[in-house]
């Protein structure tokens, strides 16, 4: 190889081809993906995150929760995602179109969080999630900096954690979640792929189309 011009041309086309193929190609396929309107329910899916949950996603992103948690359920014959109760169906691209910062994740040090509010048999409620964030659980560290330990002035706050045992705050004190913790928990509770899109129904293999 002696020709510098050819080298540059080759390099540029290598990069351009992969960019066109992967970035433009997938953009052409998914870029215009629209919400799905269900006549019988008279509304479209997915729905946008409520404001507080959208702020919670920023907390999730800033703490890089995706370094241990995924948000994607794989199809039934690929891994134990559905057997673990993480979702009734596989996640599809349409589930994510309204999420400003998609957090698919690449590691499962902890469980998938896609359908946290519809776990069987019991889904964690706000109080459980708050306590888990405050105290940690198993391999998950505690996130105490998302909470404030403050003296009770007047009535105990409605958000104060009901902690027991060694975690109980000093007498006259209460542990209250910060706005960030409230937003994060609202986000976690709002995550869900409840609606069955046509493309999310598992393909029944083998047969001729009816």
């Amino acid at each position, binding site marked *: 190889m002696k020709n510098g011009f050819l080298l540059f041309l080759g390099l540029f086309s290598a990069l351009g081809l992969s960019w066109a193929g*992967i970035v433009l190609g997938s953009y052409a396929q998914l870029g215009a*993906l629209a919400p799905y309107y269900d006549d019988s329910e008279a509304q479209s899916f997915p729905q946008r995150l409520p404001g507080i949950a959208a702020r919670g996603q920023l907390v999730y992103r800033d703490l*890089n929760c995706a370094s241990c948690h995924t948000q994607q359920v794989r199809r039934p014959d690929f*891994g134990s995602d559905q057997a673990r109760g993480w979702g009734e169906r596989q996640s599809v691209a349409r589930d994510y179109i309204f999420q400003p910062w998609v957090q*698919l994740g*690449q590691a*499962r040090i902890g469980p998938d969080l896609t359908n946290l509010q519809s776990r069987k048999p019991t889904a964690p409620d706000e109080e459980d999630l708050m306590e888990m964030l405050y105290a940690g659980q198993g391999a998950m560290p*505690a996130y105490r900096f998302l909470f404030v330990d403050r003296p009770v002035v007047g009535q105990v706050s409605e958000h104060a954690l009901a902690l027991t045992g060694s975690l109980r705050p000093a007498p006259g004190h209460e542990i209250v979640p910060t706005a960030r913790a409230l937003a994060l928990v609202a986000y976690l509770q709002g995550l869900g792929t409840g609606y069955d899109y046509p493309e999310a129904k598992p393909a029944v293999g083998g047969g001729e189309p009816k």
Partner: protein
Amino acid sequence: MTAQAQVAPEEASTVGSAGRLPLLLLLGCGILWLLAAGVLGLVAAIQLHAPWFFENCRILNHGRVEALRESIWIYGWVGNAGLCVALWVLARLGGEPLRAGNLVVIGAGAWNLGLLVGLAGIVLGDGTALPALQLPGYALPVMLAGYGAMAVSGVLSWAGRRRSVMFASHWYAVAALFLFPWIFSAAQVTLIWVPVRGVLQAIVDGWYTQGIWSLWMAPLALAGAYYVVPKATGRTLPSYDAAALGFWCLVFVGPWTGGRHLIGGPVPAWISSIAIVASVTLLFHYLIVLINLRWAFGGGGVALKFVAFGLAAYALGGLVDAVTSMRGVALLTQFTHFDSAQQQLAFSGGISLMLFGAVYFAVPRLAGRPWASGALMTGHLVLAVVGVALLAVSLGAAGLIQGAALNEPAVPFAEIAERTRTWLLVATAADSLILFGNLLLAANFIQTVACRCGRDQEAVTP
């Protein structure tokens, strides 16, 4: 095959005083960042088996530590040291002193300043949580400008080379210098300034991650390896004609592995299918590089040994990548520590060891004096090789256990953590070995560059 006892004077002066300050500055920054990444990597590794470690520190919670470590390793270590090696190789092959050294200094300043601002951004909560592009948007244009300034010097060396012939090191160095700004800015625009919607973010990020791997990090390391092996062994490369095929294979096929980690995810299936085909096709590249550089395995100085172990880790990392990209294997290894094992093998093994080899070869010729201590060099080699091997094996074992347990729905996550604990402890030990080895490099580098005392009698050149 024989290690040179002393640097020939004319060799030391080719890049000469013009290149000394800018390139040693780049390298010094790179080594500092490498140590920082090592410390953070150690913290992250400890947190995996001891979640209470720094748990109440908002700066050092696990997610942020991972983000900081990854950014520092890629942009701090490879960005600085890799560029130092590429610019040095280009200047040497051009046969002229390094040009536009001032621009290199200014560019290095901007690059590292931008990186520092970006890391502060992650600490303050502006991290993007995008793999390989964790730095917040406002840091990136400064870094891009800095990179452009540094690359000018390489382009001048390449354009003004005395002989029109181009060597394999030329291709790899030019490819890395030229392609990075394009990928970097394309990813910035589509992921940060005007983010694409939905899962396209994950797809573009995958393209970016694999793109900087195959078009930037690997070429930077290979530019050094393709230069050092023939120089240190004194033999021409075998099957040189095939080298071009290996090069174009990496450049054309590499970025198509973008869907590598999206298997089974909510993305079109063709994206991961193409990634599997590309990962397997890349084996051709690894094979050619091994054949081309096989004299490295014949022994020689410390620099050559580093390159040899680096090559072995690089090829092995590629093989593991190809095997685990298969859907049947990914079923076991996806989302587990096995992915980190592969990454560490390729990054801390392949890229770092090859860069170390080039650094050990280049510094005496740059600084005009041999390395201060041969014992530190040997110590670094042993610690680095043992550390990388131990890290890859322990994380791989932890990953297999984790993957098998994940596939059993009845096993809770606390139990998985318990089962992998032993191997994660071993991985922590391996991380400390690597960090300790890198400290030896830093000590040796400071002694060699800063010490003015004449130690030439007892000094060593790899």
